[in-house]
């Protein structure tokens, strides 16, 4: 897949050498290859090599009907699968002009937010694991198990026009219990990790992304909000049922790894608020609009943006009037977020590269599609 070329400096200066972090590596989030050029312990250059999990989703989109492509978005970013599913359904509905019933929107929002919490558990705790604290990672998985049990219970993936399954009594009670439980658990994480002096010393002022760099590289998501820019697609271009909920967009000013971690933890609390409001005001009604068997959007194109756990995702769909899309382009936030690594890593230590990479929270299959 890659033929690494020796960097010219290495032959001139004996101290400079290249290290391959990956593709198989205990701390990279997927099959990810980082070519690091080091001088002793200081990083001179980081070059991410991607493409190890390329499966050709965009090509697949060109010879499947819209319904047949439904499973694919969830496989792109497997940690926010339901959010991608929600977004894809939204994109096709936008193109076709289908109106989705309110109850379905609420259910979509609830499952999306649960998925967001689950993804942030991995994102934040994987960062802690990259630093060497293995325990919070396993605690995070424990909490994730509860979410996955809930989601498995209803398996309410979106379909065009609504959702497939309605909320059951079990799901409703389980989610209520989960919200209460998780609110208590945040204290445990606070004591174990957030206040830990070693954790703070290793995260503060490491990997600072300034607003200028963020603008240059198109960074979105918690990575951006850790640098003080409060850009969240749910608030800027409200979609689905989000306008009816009150929630905040947490930001931190510092722009270092600690700020990004704190943003993720704060976002989990906000997601809990959204789920609670949605459960409180769940409207009755149908869960699926009447949609033709084969969705045939009119000719034209459409770009639909939504917020996944990693940043602003966009589905750009070009239709030629048939039931098979002409082109679907997925804008993956991890693609842009990963490229920032080349800008902010030089000058740090090797241990920091792992920390920064963990704090950016990249999902490699989303980059490769």
């Amino acid at each position, binding site marked *: 897949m890659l033929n690494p070329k020796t960097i010219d400096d290495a032959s001139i200066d004996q101290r400079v050498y290249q290290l391959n972090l990956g593709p198989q590596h205990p701390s990279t989030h997927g099959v990810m290859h980082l070519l690091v050029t080091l001088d002793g312990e200081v990083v001179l250059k980081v070059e991410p090599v991607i493409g190890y999990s390329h499966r050709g989703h965009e090509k697949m989109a060109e010879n499947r009907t819209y319904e*047949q492509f439904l499973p694919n978005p969830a496989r792109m970013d497997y940690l926010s699968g339901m959010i991608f599913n929600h977004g894809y359904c939204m994109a096709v509905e936008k193109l076709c002009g289908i109106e989705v019933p309110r109850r379905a929107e609420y259910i979509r929002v609830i499952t999306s937010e649960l998925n967001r919490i689950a993804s942030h558990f991995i994102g934040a705790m994987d960062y802690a694991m990259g630093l060497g604290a293995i325990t919070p990672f396993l605690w995070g998985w424990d909490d994730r198990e509860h979410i996955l049990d809930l989601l498995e219970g209803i398996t309410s993936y979106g379909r065009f026009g609504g959702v497939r399954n309605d909320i059951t009594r079990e799901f409703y009670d389980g989610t209520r219990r989960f919200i209460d439980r998780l609110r208590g658990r945040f204290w445990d994480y606070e004591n174990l990790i957030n206040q830990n002096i070693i954790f703070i010393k290793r995260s503060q002022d490491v990997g600072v992304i300034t607003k200028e760099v963020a603008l240059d590289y198109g960074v979105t998501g918690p990575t951006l909000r850790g640098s003080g820019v409060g850009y969240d697609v749910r608030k800027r*271009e409200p979609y689905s049922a989000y306008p009816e909920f009150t929630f905040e967009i947490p930001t931190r000013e510092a722009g270092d790894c600690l700020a990004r971690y704190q943003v993720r933890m704060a976002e989990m609390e906000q997601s809990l608020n959204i789920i609670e409001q949605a459960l409180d005001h769940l409207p009755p009604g149908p869960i699926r609009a009447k949609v033709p068997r084969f969705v045939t959007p009119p000719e034209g194109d459409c770009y639909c943006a939504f917020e996944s756990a990693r940043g602003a995702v966009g589905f750009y769909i070009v239709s030629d009037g048939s039931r098979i899309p002409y082109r679907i382009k997925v*804008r993956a936030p991890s693609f842009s977020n990963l*490229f920032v690594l080349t800008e902010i890593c030089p000058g740090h230590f090797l241990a920091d590269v792992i920390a920064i990479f963990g704090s950016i929270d990249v999902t490699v299959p989303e980059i490769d599609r």
Partner: protein
Amino acid sequence: MPTAEPTKPLENIRNSLVQVIPEAELLDRDYQECGYHLEVRLVMRGMRRMAREMKDRRFFLETITAVDFLEYFHLIYLFTTYNEASFRVMARVKLLPEVRPFSVWTIYPEAIWLEREVYDFFGIRFEGHPDLKRIINPDDVDYFPLLKNFGKTKFTTDIDDILC
């Protein structure tokens, strides 16, 4: 559904773009229908000027992609702001095959990877790109996967859409 209303700031952008790239065609689009507010149609020239203008107005480059229409390409650039009045501008560049557009990486460094991806999948080469090589596909393949005359598309084979 409430949405970001295009008001004064959009007018400003429209006017400045008219000044910067007089040869472009500007279309106002309905955000509810297609997800972007302004469409700028260019024919092969003017992208760098537009990118410079967008950068000055604090837009970030959301994505660069291409659509293959067999006789020509549409190269699509999407710009969005971080600001409160958030809206989206799309630039559509009509490219004939074998034409090499200019790279915008000096203005938006993110374009280095985005243009590599477009090259990797469509074969569109960018003029002035520092490191134009494959990014997602293996390094040594000689095809461009997303072209319409490659692989299984409705132009090459009969696609039987099996009911799911």
